[in-house]
């Protein structure tokens, strides 16, 4: 991604990340780094069973243990009338009935539903004392049969996770025109069918979750430090639905946060319990997850089983797509768990193609597993995986080139209304594909394949032409579809008297580099150095409101809110400048940091206007308030639609099944780009995660006992640098048509586009050996078995 030379603060310049000095010198301040006077420590006693009744809990030994301050169980939270953890999206099923929404108690009420479910909390003077006392808590369980697989859970006779959800069904949901789709299949020349699994993942942010709550008796207020991606939403859900606290008495601070990938969007039981307990014990209470707890209690991702069918005419034009997915929601509805396999999944099934009729059904099941929710991509990787796998399979069955079948079906005219609710504003899929083919040197592939063959290796090339939808919006439409929250963003620009600026944003940075990107946006607009702009985020006490960061929304929605606030700053600045320059407001132009009377050399710099606003001696006080501080809320008119082409090239050792990714090329259209270096970093990280899913990562539960078998890095395989090739990445720009920056978002694309590219490449490599199908992750044994024509045995 070679950016042209740009001024240091300009949009489009690879400005070095302002936050990195802090992070690289150990100056970051994460939740666990915050220590308050009189702080106590919480340790959660978690269920060792996947499914059990709690017969009795005896606290007495634990209470007597050294250093113990309090022991609380579900009886205590019930006595205080604590509510359950709410779900943020109400899904209506095929009959228009609301989804089943069983209670999600922060501490178990008589029953535990997954290994790691919270049973009790011990609060003690030290962490070790709390942990020691936890071993003394006597809990009598009556162990029940468990079900961990969503397909099994929906079968008659399966163990029932919730009384209020018969057959473990949360909802059966559908989208699209079934009759039109059936009609399309009726006239098909050929139908391609696949059955695929989207493997369950564990998020693994480098910083485990943590929460530190403090209750102040003097004014009955609470402060919660928490590793979270959207502190305002955390506060709203916690105060309004769970604890019944006055919202203005609770301040939520999400300080430096070490990665989230979605897993820190949600309101978790531990956050609620430490907040509640801080008042009960009248001490600050800190909880920091250890890595084993993170595996058990951070919301997991993906876990779909899908049957899909693609109808084509004789030229390989797509006529219809039919998809049936079974989604695992885990034991409880996590904050956005219900929306991920529905509105974030079904709506993406048009992909980049003109398929005129699409019908999707999603059967969502409760199981005795950790709740499943949004994880980098959230629904969109699952949709892309289904679509890009079936399209590649279709090309093989139709004897068409992989790029050709895609080109024949690309959407080329915009705006484009898909049959699954979305309206794409703009894109240029052909150019991305062409550019990616050059980047990947597709022309040279046959020679590379022949050379590999000489070494006894099988080479393959795999495509994925993906689309995603970012910046979920607008609020009113999402609300009509069941969203229980707004989807806008807020921004505030505080110009200081000397002309430097503090930006307050409701977006939250936990690795994305907002402190730099957003500063660039403001600096470029105001014509001031990027060093004169600081960005503040993650504190309900400092910014007006915020919906946080998820779904690659920050620049498209948060950046737009900042631009709106800047509009107001500029408008007011013009009024002040008109007064100072004794000119009409309509004659004032603002450019390069100067307010100028059009057609003259009379001007006043931005800093001069700021100074006048705060030292209003020569100022139109009769007409204008002093000060230069503006706030704006922005609710987008549509999603943004990043899209691109990913091409993977792999080499397989047929003797062992080992797959090596030798090349990976990605050309993405993220709209306008503020900071190419940061965008490239986001793409690299996303690709690593997507390739991790394709090659390595797999969350496995024991089918009988419901124990998590991949509960540590000894068994859960994370991608490492040595597993990845040196990525070739580039961009192609079609600016978004409906937000002020023309931006689309780049955080998730890598994780969305890459898994099918990798799997398609391995199938391409092994097709000459008769391999037609493979499931992720592509472990050496799975690949070897496929080559041998043996069924997969390993988990």
């Amino acid at each position, binding site marked *: 991604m070679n950016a042209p030379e740009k001024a240091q603060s300009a949009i489009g310049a690879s400005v070095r990340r302002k936050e990195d000095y802090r992070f690289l010198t150990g100056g970051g301040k994460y939740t666990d780094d915050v220590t308050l006077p009189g702080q106590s420590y919480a340790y959660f006693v978690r269920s060792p069973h996947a499914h059990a009744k709690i017969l009795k809990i005896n606290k007495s030994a634990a209470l007597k243990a050294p250093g113990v301050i309090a022991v609380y169980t579900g009886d205590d939270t019930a006595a205080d009338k604590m509510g359950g953890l709410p779900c943020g999206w109400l899904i209506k099923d095929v009959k228009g009935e609301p989804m089943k929404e069983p209670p999600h108690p922060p501490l178990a009420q008589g029953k535990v539903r997954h290994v790691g479910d919270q049973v009790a909390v011990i609060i003690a003077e030290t962490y*070790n004392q709390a942990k020691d006392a936890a071993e003394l808590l006597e809990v009598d369980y009556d162990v029940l049969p468990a079900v961990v697989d969503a397909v099994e859970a929906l079968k008659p006779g399966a163990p029932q996770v919730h009384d209020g959800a018969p057959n473990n069904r949360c909802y059966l949901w559908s989208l699209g025109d079934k009759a039109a789709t059936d009609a399309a299949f009726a006239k098909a020349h050929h139908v391609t069918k696949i059955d695929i699994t989207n493997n369950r993942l564990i998020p693994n942010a480098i910083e485990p979750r943590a929460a530190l709550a403090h209750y102040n008796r003097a004014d009955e207020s609470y402060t919660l430090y928490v590793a979270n991606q959207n502190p305002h939403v955390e506060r709203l859900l916690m105060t309004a639905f769970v604890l019944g606290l006055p919202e203005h008495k609770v301040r939520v601070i999400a300080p430096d946060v070490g990665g989230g990938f979605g897993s820190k969007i949600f309101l978790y039981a531990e956050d609620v319990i430490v907040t509640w307990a801080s008042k009960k014990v009248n001490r600050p209470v800190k909880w920091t997850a250890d890595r084993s707890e993170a595996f058990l209690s951070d919301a997991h991702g993906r876990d779909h089983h899908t049957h899909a069918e693609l109808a084509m005419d004789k030229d390989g034009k797509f006529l219809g797509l039919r998809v049936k997915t079974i989604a695992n929601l885990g034991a409880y509805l996590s904050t956005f768990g219900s929306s991920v396999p529905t509105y974030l999944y079904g709506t993406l099934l048009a992909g980049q193609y003109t398929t005129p009729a699409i019908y999707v059904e999603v059967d969502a099941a409760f199981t005795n597993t950790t709740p499943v929710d949004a994880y980098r991509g959230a629904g969109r990787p699952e949709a892309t995986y289904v679509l890009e796998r079936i399209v590649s399979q279709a090309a093989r069955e139709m004897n068409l080139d992989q790029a050709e079948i895609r080109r024949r079906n690309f959407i080329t005219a915009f705006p484009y209304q898909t049959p699954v609710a979305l309206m794409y504003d703009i894109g240029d899929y052909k150019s991305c594909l062409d550019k990616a083919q050059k980047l990947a040197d597709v022309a040279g592939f046959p020679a590379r394949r022949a050379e590999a063959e000489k070494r006894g290796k099988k080479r393959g090339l795999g495509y994925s032409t993906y689309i995603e939808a970012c910046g979920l919006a607008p609020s009113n439409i999402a609300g009509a579809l069941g969203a229980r929250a707004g989807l806008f963003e807020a921004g505030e620009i505080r110009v200081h008297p000397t002309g430097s600026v503090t930006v307050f944003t409701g977006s939250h940075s936990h690795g994305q580099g907002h402190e730099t990107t957003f500063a660039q946006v403001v600096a470029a607009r105001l014509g001031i150095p990027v060093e004169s702009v600081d960005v503040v985020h993650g504190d309900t006490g400092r910014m007006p409101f915020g919906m946080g960061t998820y779904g690659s929304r920050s620049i498209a929605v948060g950046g737009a809110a900042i631009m709106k606030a800047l509009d107001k700053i500029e408008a007011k600045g013009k009024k002040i400048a008109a007064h100072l320059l004794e000119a009409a407001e309509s004659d004032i132009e603002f450019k390069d940091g100067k307010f100028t009377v059009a057609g003259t050399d009379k001007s006043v710099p931005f800093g001069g206007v700021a100074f006048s606003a705060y030292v209003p001696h020569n100022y139109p006080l009769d007409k204008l308030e002093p000060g230069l501080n503006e706030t704006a809320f922005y609710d987008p008119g549509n999603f943004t639609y990043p899209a691109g082409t990913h091409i993977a090239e792999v080499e397989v050792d047929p003797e062992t099944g080992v797959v090596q990714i030798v090349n990976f090329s990605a050309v993405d259209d993220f709209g306008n780009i503020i900071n190419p270096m940061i965008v490239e970093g986001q793409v690299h990280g996303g690709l690593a995660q997507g390739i991790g899913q394709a090659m390595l990562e797999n969350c496995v539960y024991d089918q009988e006992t419901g124990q998590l078998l991949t509960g540590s890095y000894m068994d859960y395989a994370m991608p490492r640098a040595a597993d990845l090739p040196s990525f070739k990445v580039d961009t192609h720009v079609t600016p978004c048509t409906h937000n002020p920056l023309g931006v689309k978002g780049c955080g998730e694309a890598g994780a969305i586009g890459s898994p099918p590219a990798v799997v398609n490449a391995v199938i391409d490599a092994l097709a000459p050996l008769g391999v037609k199908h493979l499931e992720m992750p592509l472990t*050496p044994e799975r690949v070897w078995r496929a080559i041998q024509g043996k069924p997969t045995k*390993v988990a």
Partner: protein
Amino acid sequence: MYAFEFHRPKSVSEAAALLAKSKGKLIAGGQSLVGAMKLRLASPENLVDLGGVAELRGIKREGNAIVIGAGTRHAEVAASKDVQSSIPALAALAGGIGDRQVRNMGTIGGSLANNDPAADYPAAVLGLGATIRTNKRTIAADDFFKGMYETALAPDELITAVSFPAPKKAAYIKFRNPASRFALVGVFVSQDASGVRVAVTGAGSAGVFRATALEQALAKNFSPDAVKGIKVDTAKLNTDLHATAEYRAHLITVLAGRAVAKASS
């Protein structure tokens, strides 16, 4: 982790005495033990640290053998000129253990006493027919490993050094477990005057073992072709999340062939 008493002896005899008296546990690099203690899977009340025992450190030549002190770090073995020139396969094996941090802390004595069924050193010790020296006796490799995490060591016995005879040819090939990066299967092959040894780690349900069928074939003809098609018995191999016994058996044969090729190159 639970609280414990920490002892830091200066000599082997002092360490042995402390060990016997306290009924505690030795700690060397801590790379296996500390993890287990943090997970509360191990809870020794006394820890006897070997880090201050100078006589356990170092690598020396004794005739045709390389003798490595039990307290020698993996990184030191990997970087040793003596090991690199006499038994390059052993230096390479040490350099492939874990990551840089682990190699700078972990010791050969700790690895062998621990006898993790997927550890690398046991394959070298068995594959080279090495001798384990303790504060009480010497133990032949074939008598030392007694199953998963089990060895011939008595509770108050400590490894002082390991003596490796230099082979004519040797090579180790490690096929990594994708999660832990320990050996899913590791095969150590050596040839010298006394014969051929093929030791396998990562695969056996009772830990490291010698693949006798492969040894016999290679004794007749030390070439990659000699092992082709030999089916390793799956009865005593592991099936777990990461691989079936069937796949492990297949890999043993493939890796043995590749190790022979590497040893001969």
